[in-house]
Every structure is written in C-alpha cells, then in structure tokens.
C-alpha cells in the first residue's frame, strides 16, 4: 500500500463507519426499513466475501455459491421446524452441512477446469435446489416459515433488530479479517500461486488440488453461515434462496466491488443491492436496466468499483508524488 489515504481506503473507511452507525440513524429518524435493508445487505456481503475467497483469490469460478445460503438456511429452518431452536445446535449444523456439501462438490468439480468448473458447480447447486424443492415435509417449493429465531443465551436476542444487525456486522467483519489472514498465510500464498500458474506450482511440488479443496470448503462453510443468518433475518427459507440467479448476484457483487480485495465484495454488495433498491423504485421493470448495465460494466469497467477507486487514488498519488505512478 502506498499510503493510508488512497481513495479506496477513504471510501472503505467511510463505508465501515456508515455501517457501524446505521442503527443510530435508523433509531433517530425512525427509519426501520433501512435497517432491514442493510441487515440483508450485510448478510449477502458475507456470502460475497466468502465467494471472493475462491473466486478472487483462488481463481475458482464457482457458479453455485448460493447453494450454501440455502443449506445454511435450511439447517436452521428444518431444525426449527422440528422444535430445535438453540443456535448452539442450529449454527454448527448449518456450518457442518455446508462444509460437507462443499467437500463433496469441490472434490468432484475441482478435477476439472475452466468452463467445466462453471457448469458443474452450477449444476450441483441446482441439484440442491431441486432437492429441497422436493421435500414436502419442509414446505417444498413454498418454503418454510421460521417462527422463532435461533436462540442463544441472554442477553443475546436475535429477535431484536438492532442486536441482530450488529451480530451480522460483527460476523461480516470477522469473516473479512479471517480471509485477510488466510490469504496472507502460507496457505493463501499456495492458493494464489495456483490461481496464477498452476502448472508451475505443481512443478515445484505443491499438491494444488488439496489446497484448492480446503479453500473451497472454507468458503462454503462461511457461505453456510451467511445462510443461517439470512434465514433468521427473513424468518423464512425457501428454495428461491438458492436459485442459481442468486449465485449470479453474488458473483456480480464480487466483481463489481473488486476481486481479491478484502473489502471489495462488501462494497459490491452495497452497490448492487442499493442500486436494485433505487432502480426498483423507478420502474417495476428495473431488471431491464440492470441487465444492460451489468453488460456495460463487463465490457468497459472490469476493475469494478474498487478498481475505479484505486485508479482515482493512483491519479491523486501521481499528482502528489510523481514517482508512484512510474
């Protein structure tokens, strides 16, 4: 990092401060909608952050990440349906189930590369979607209402919206820190080396498949955690949570915010979901704007927002100190 006050860092800091202070604004101005919206954004940002670990840092183009949202969510929903409300049971089950799914899917799909990997992760995620759609006991297509949120010990009460928001935010920041540590560790270097030049990694003796698989499982587990939060947030879980377009949304968040950057997916999630909110306020047919917009970003602005910010930062920096740009 060339300096602390790059445009990217300033924007990230402002965003963090805004997220931390959001409940205060919501309380003072009585705007409860914004708290609900941003709880959702924070949870989906967590999913995007976990996807970034494999997509951005690992170069594994998974198109099935929404499956973990569904698995984590259904773990909570099904247990609640069976009368088990304790979060100490629900959440570990959610994490374990996601990890297991990721292990099986990863073990199969990581045998392949490129476009195969995209299609296979997508297909397996759809398999999970059809699987839960077929479970009549748990609502089938219609989904499952969750009447009680996960219960922890007092004073933690997830039914309190402000508390729940802060729990989600804390988990998100925790996950970002975790991934930052991971990606800078020897493990992370091995995973990034495999992204950059897999043949060379193998030639110098790294069993890349193993590192990739572990990385895939960690990302899936974090995705499952996001799913558990999402089910609690909506008090509802349905197959739609894990429909493949949701996986697409998560990829957009990561790319929009900037791949392989710690805060990129958070920035992308806020940008995409706020944009959706704004567009859907303008017209009922807002996706007819979002679709081509996305296409334009792909064609003309591949660095994402984070890229634009650092470009801006580099320009500012070159003006201050001409050596930086050389």
């Amino acid at each position, binding site marked *: 990092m060339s300096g602390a006050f790059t445009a990217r860092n300033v924007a990230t800091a402002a965003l963090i401060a805004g997220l931390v202070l959001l409940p205060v604004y919501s309380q003072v101005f009585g705007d409860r909608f914004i708290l609900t919206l941003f709880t959702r954004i924070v949870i989906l940002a967590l999913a995007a952050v976990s996807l970034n670990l494999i997509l951005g840092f690992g170069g594994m183009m998974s198109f099935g990440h929404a499956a973990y949202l569904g698995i984590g969510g259904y773990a909570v929903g099904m247990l609640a349906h069976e009368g088990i409300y304790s979060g100490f049971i629900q959440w570990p089950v959610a994490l374990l189930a996601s990890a297991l799914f990721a292990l099986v899917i990863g073990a199969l799909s990581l045998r392949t590369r490129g476009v*195969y990997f995209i299609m296979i992760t*997508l*297909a397996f995620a759809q398999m999970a979607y059809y699987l839960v759609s077929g479970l009549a006991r748990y609502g089938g297509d219609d989904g499952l209402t969750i009447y009680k949120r996960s219960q922890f010990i007092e004073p933690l009460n997830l039914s309190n919206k402000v508390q729940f928001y802060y729990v989600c935010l804390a988990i998100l920041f925790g996950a970002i820190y975790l991934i930052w540590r991971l990606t800078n560790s020897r493990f992370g270097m091995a995973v990034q080396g495999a992204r950059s030049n897999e043949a060379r990694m193998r030639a110098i003796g790294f069993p890349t498949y193993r590192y990739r698989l572990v990385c895939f499982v960690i990302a899936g587990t974090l995705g499952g955690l996001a799913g558990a939060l999402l089910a609690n947030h909506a008090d509802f879980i349905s197959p739609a949570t894990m429909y493949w377009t949701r996986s697409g949304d998560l990829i957009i968040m990561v790319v929009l915010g900037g791949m392989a950057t710690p805060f990129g997916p958070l920035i992308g999630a806020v940008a995409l979901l706020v944009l959706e909110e704004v567009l859907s306020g303008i017209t009922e*047919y807002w996706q007819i704007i979002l*679709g081509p917009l996305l296409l334009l970003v*792909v064609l003309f602005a591949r660095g994402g927002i984070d890229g634009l910010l650092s470009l801006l930062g580099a320009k500012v920096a070159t003006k201050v100190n001409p050596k930086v740009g050389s």
Partner: protein
Amino acid sequence: MTLFFEQCLNGLQFGLLLFLLAAGLTLVFGIMDLVNLAHGSLYMVGAYFAATFAAWTGSFVFGAVLALCATLVVGMAVEVIVMRRLYGRDHLDHVLGTFGLILFFDEAVRLIWGPAGLSLPLPSWLAGSVQILPGFQYSSYRLAIIVVTLSVAAFLYVLVMRTRIGMLIRAGASNREMVGALGVNIKLLYTLVFGLGAALAGLAGLMQAPILTVQIGMGENILILAFVVTVIGGIGSIRGALVAALLVGILDTLGRAFFPDILRTMLSPTAASALAPALSSMLIYLLMAIVLVIKPEGLFSAGNK
C-alpha cells in the same frame, strides 16, 4: 410394459429436445470459446414467438416457421451487438455479460407479453394419438417432435461433416488463425454459427411450448440440464451432446416415472413418498458426478479444450 415403453419414448423425445439446446451451446463454445448463459433465453424467446405468431396467423405450422426465423434473427442480432465484444475475454466476463442478458430478456418478455404466460394450442391433426404398434397408442405431437429433432440431428451431421461451412466450423474450432488466413470472413461465420445455435434453441422452445406453459424463466431450468448434457458429453463434441442428451433425457423421464415405485419397495411408504420427488430429480446429477469421476473431460471430449 406399455407404460414403460411410452416413458422410454417420452425420455427419447425429451432427450432429443435437450440435444437441440446442448448442440447450440457446444457449437458456440467449441468454435468461439464462448460460455453463453443466455442460451436458455433464446429457447424462451422461441416459445413466445411461436405462441404469438401462431395466434396471429391462425396456423401452428406458419407460427412455428416464423418463430424459427425470428429467433434466428434475434440470435444474430445478439451476436452482432453483444457477443462479438466478448470473444477473447475470460470466461468470467462471458458469465457476467450473458447473465446480464438473461435479466434483460426475462424483463423484456415480461414487458411485452406480461407476466401471466401464454399457451400454444395444438392443431387438431397433431392433438390426437397414433397407433405405432398393435395395441400401443402414442401422442402424435410427441412423435412429431421425435421425427423433427432426428431430422435436425441428421441435418447437423451433414452440415458439420459434409459441407464447406461445416469444414470451416470444424477448422475454426481447432485453429482460428488458419481459418482467418484462408480469407474466410470469420465475423460472418461466427454470426452464422451463433444464429444457428439460437435457432436450434428456439426450435426446442417452440416445440416444447404446446406441452408446457410458455412462461418467463422457462429457459433457465432447461439450460441447466443442457449444461449437464454438455458436461457429460464433453464440451465441443456434437456426437457427445447427442449421446449425453439421450442418456439424460431417458434417465430423467424414467427416474421420475418409476423411481418412486422402486423406492417404495425399499423404504416405508411414507418415507418413500416424502423422499421420492427429491431423490428422483437428483438422478441426472448423480450420473454427471459418476462421469466426472471416471472421465473428467466428458464422454466424448474434443481433446485439447
């Protein structure tokens, strides 16, 4: 036994439809190295066009022909306006860009035709059934689909293996520069190939239209199946697409028809009926997983891809 035979034919018919989609996907990927998620949208567009044109002209056949041409045009337009700019980019760009196209198409269809969905009634001469074996009746329309798709498959085979265009297509798949050096207009070739893929998808959509409702998102479910077919068959291989499409079509149809009964012999009736719908939808993915373990590059891998 007749039920089994009928389901086999249904599976064959479904498999052939999947082949139409998978062939387009695999052609476009094999030749332009392009991952097109919006392929299912062209299937949907084909169905909507058919329903509309059939209503306008009052004729199913006219409607179908017009719809086929219209989908071809839409496909070529999409290629010229969007896809062209995506060649040579990495696959992530393809995925995101064509994902954007899906959003656009779904919403455009909702804007034009409304959210309710359409139906495409069959003409009376196709609505009945014919006796194809003594004592065995089969839906004339499904039979017609089998005949049409088989002729399309034969046409594709002749086109790719026996004609000059097919030679270019095959050469283009293995050596882009060489085809360019031959002085062939690559841009036009790509537009035609993409249009062909679109027309195949549109044909699948319009033929499926009288059986299912014409609705938004109809292309997405079948697109995933086409992906499964492509993965099993091996990307870039038309022959692989055909074999895999038939495998998937028949396994899926038979699985849904008979797997619940098989399950009932193994589990308690309540458990079986609870699990049957979920598990029978998993069969084709299981098949894909098995193929991946044995041949990660698919059954008929084109080799160097």
